């Protein structure tokens, strides 16, 4: 260090000793400051990691889903009207076809309550998808087709291990099953080793135990013993899970998926009809009351339309304002006033812009509610001050020598500004604009005020059709009761964050591209 360079052991009480002392203190201060800086960064990084980590850990299960594939017979009798007219075809009763297909998987089940439970494995809303597929290809009428649909959200949660703890016990020997007369219950005889192992896995708790054998499934009514009473869930005979016991740690009353549904699901899984897949519904579908069908597509399109309106309004107006105020406007009381007001505008809470939008655009000008046009206008008002302020800062940062150089060879003010100053300020202006837009992309409150919180079943096709946006969609899902929306909320947050990262990456890219040294 520099200390070593100082003459060591100088005998005279010269000023160098004092300087040395001061120098050491100065270095200490610098080291301290660096430590503070590193500590601050470490805290920030840790907080970021925790945030992203918690969102990702919640969201990742929403990016894949279990699909139920059924052989559906497209029954011509259930399609009234002209079978070559797509509109007529879509009016067909595809829900019943789906139900019949599902019932066909377990034909022995005749109890009505059980059948209702069975049909709850997939929502009736899937019939619309089937109807569209048949309408697109009327040749399918009368055929049996393989139709894939997302399994019910509660079953999906069970399959992902979120509904209950699951423990599989392999049985060494197939239990001897003696069904009673009405087929509702059966006496099960387990081998001593199997009975002991099940009892072991069960422990002290009182969980549900489902024994699978020969394609059938029974729920044990009492403790696992060599001879046990079992309620029949699935009649034996068809292919299914072989010789296993499933121990569910959460009692049936405490979960939204019943033992019978679990037995059917496991049997379907064993038959290869239930498989995990990438959750395309999350991206391709619009919002739905059924979490397994709900997707962000409408919100994404809404966000894109809204951002387009915001961009088209806020960026040109903001940049032009910045250029005028910075380069052309005389510096007087009026421009000072304008400047102060722009700065204040940037600090106005965003919901106030929503109120303004409601009062002016919707109530006074009569623009449509819930439309991206109004949302974009409101967000443009909110973004303008940011664009103006960052644009002015970027223009200010261009060295005055460039301006002088242009003026001195006889360029007019406009030529100097647009030919020399603006290109140099462009990276800064664009970064500021994109950051402003990214802010607008994440804005919720003002859009709630103008009705963009409505349930939107169809993706918007233009700036005047009803729409919602990503952050509002997140808000809607976060306040929904279904547990499955929790993961989807987190997934939507990740999609929104990716969108923002994409925008910021674009900002960096543009910055690099336009950046020139001077």
């Amino acid at each position, binding site marked *: 260090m520099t200390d070593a360079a100082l003459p060591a052991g100088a005998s005279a009480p010269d000023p160098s000793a004092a300087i040395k002392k001061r120098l050491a203190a100065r270095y200490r201060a610098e080291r301290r400051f660096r430590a503070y800086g590193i500590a601050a960064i470490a805290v920030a990084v840790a907080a970021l990691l925790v945030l992203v980590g918690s969102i990702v850990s919640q969201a990742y299960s929403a990016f894949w889903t279990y699909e139920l594939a059924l052989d559906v017979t497209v029954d011509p009798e259930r399609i009234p009207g002209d079978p070559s007219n797509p509109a007529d075809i879509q009016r067909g009763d595809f829900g019943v076809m789906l139900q019949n297909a599902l019932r066909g998987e377990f034909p022995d089940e005749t109890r009505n309550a059980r059948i209702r439970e069975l049909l709850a494995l997939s929502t009736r809303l899937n019939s619309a998808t089937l109807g569209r597929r048949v309408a697109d290809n009327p040749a399918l009428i009368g055929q049996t087709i393989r139709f894939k649909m997302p399994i019910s959200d509660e079953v999906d949660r069970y399959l992902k291990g979120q509904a209950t703890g699951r423990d599989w016990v392999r049985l060494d020997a197939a239990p001897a099953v003696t069904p009673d007369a009405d087929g509702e219950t059966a006496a099960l005889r387990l081998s001593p080793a199997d009975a002991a192992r099940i009892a072991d896995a069960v422990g002290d708790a009182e969980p549900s135990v489902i024994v699978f054998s020969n394609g059938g499934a029974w729920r044990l009514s009492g403790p696992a013993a060599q001879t046990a009473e079992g309620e029949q869930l699935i009649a034996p005979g068809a292919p299914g899970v072989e010789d296993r016991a499933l121990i569910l740690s959460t009692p049936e009353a405490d979960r939204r998926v019943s033992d019978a549904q679990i037995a059917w699901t496991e049997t379907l899984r064993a038959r290869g009809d239930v498989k995990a897949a990438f959750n395309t519904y999350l991206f391709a579908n619009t919002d739905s009351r059924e979490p397994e069908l709900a997707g962000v597509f409408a919100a994404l399109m809404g966000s894109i339309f809204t951002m387009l309106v915001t961009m088209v309004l806020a960026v040109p107006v903001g940049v032009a304002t910045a250029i005028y105020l910075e380069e052309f406007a*005389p*510096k007087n009381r009026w421009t000072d006033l304008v400047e102060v007001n722009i700065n204040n505008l940037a600090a106005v809470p965003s919901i106030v812009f929503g109120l303004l939008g409601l009062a002016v655009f919707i109530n006074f000008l009569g623009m449509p509610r819930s439309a991206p046009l109004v949302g974009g206008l409101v967000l443009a008002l909110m973004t303008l001050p940011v664009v103006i302020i960052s644009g002015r800062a970027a223009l200010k940062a261009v*060295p005055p*020598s*460039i*301006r*002088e*150089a*242009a*003026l*001195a*060879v*006889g*360029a*007019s003010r406009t*030529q100097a500004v647009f*030919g*020399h100053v603006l290109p*140099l300020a462009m990276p800064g202006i664009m970064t500021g604009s994109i950051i402003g837009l990214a802010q607008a992309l994440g804005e919720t409150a003002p859009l709630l005020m103008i009705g963009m919180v409505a349930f939107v079943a169809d993706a918007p096709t233009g700036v005047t059709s009803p729409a919602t946006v990503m952050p509002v969609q997140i808000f809607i899902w976060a306040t929904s009761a279904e547990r499955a929306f929790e993961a989807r909320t987190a997934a939507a947050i990740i999609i929104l964050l990716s969108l923002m990262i994409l925008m910021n990456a674009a900002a960096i890219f543009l910055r690099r591209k336009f950046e*020139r*040294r*001077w």
Partner: protein
Amino acid sequence: MNDREPGGHAAPLTPPTPVVQTHDMHGHPLASLPVKVCTRDVDVFYGDKQALFGVSMDIPDCSVTAFIGPSGCGKSTFLRCINRMNDTIDIARVAGSIEIDGANIYDRGIDPVLLRARVGMVFQKPNPFPKSIYDNVAYGPKIHGLVSTKDETDAVVEDSLKRAGLWAEVADRLDAPGTGLSGGQQQRLVIARAIAVKPEVILMDEPCSALDPIATAKIEELIDELRENFCIIIVTHSMAQAARVSQKTAFFHLGKLVESGPTEEIFTNPRDERTQDYITGRFG
């Protein structure tokens, strides 16, 4: 690039203007040089603060006039009056008259943009545009419509760079950024940019203060050559430089023009005590 070079070296380095004799056999300036810039009672105010007080002087054509004086005395302010660069400062206000070739440049009918095409300026810190060397030089002629074809532009660029003594160094890299040159080269590029619009007067505000001695010598040599065709006004804080390059010198102090006259007289036989003190280094 080579393809920009019009056939061989036929193009003359300087236009065939007759060499104006500026000194007699003893080195004294000839009185016959026409007056190019004539200022009367020029006052400049920055807001309430007066920076120049009644400056009246005649600046001859085809010669170098040097402004000297302690810093803050108003040399740059006066220089910037001559091409109305002070117009770009909101708080600056100019009174009095400045005539170029007998026409007051502060008259209502004078467009400062056109004026600046006639009065070029070189600044203390080299300020090439962040563009190619070629575009730097071609910019002025293009915006003033002095050139219309690519060939004409090429010719003007080459001619200007040659006159600025930079052609040999950059002929093979006209597409390289002007900001990538050395400080001295940048300053010569800026001079080339200024002479490309064929000005009559060139103002230079301490053009060498950011340069090393070798680059400075080159610029001084260049100024001496340019003198034949332009009226050059140079602000300098180096009295040696003023003595080397100028024929006329004006000494400013506290916003006032103390005295002006042929350079040799100012340096050998100043009439004012303050001039005496300044050139002998008693204050500065």
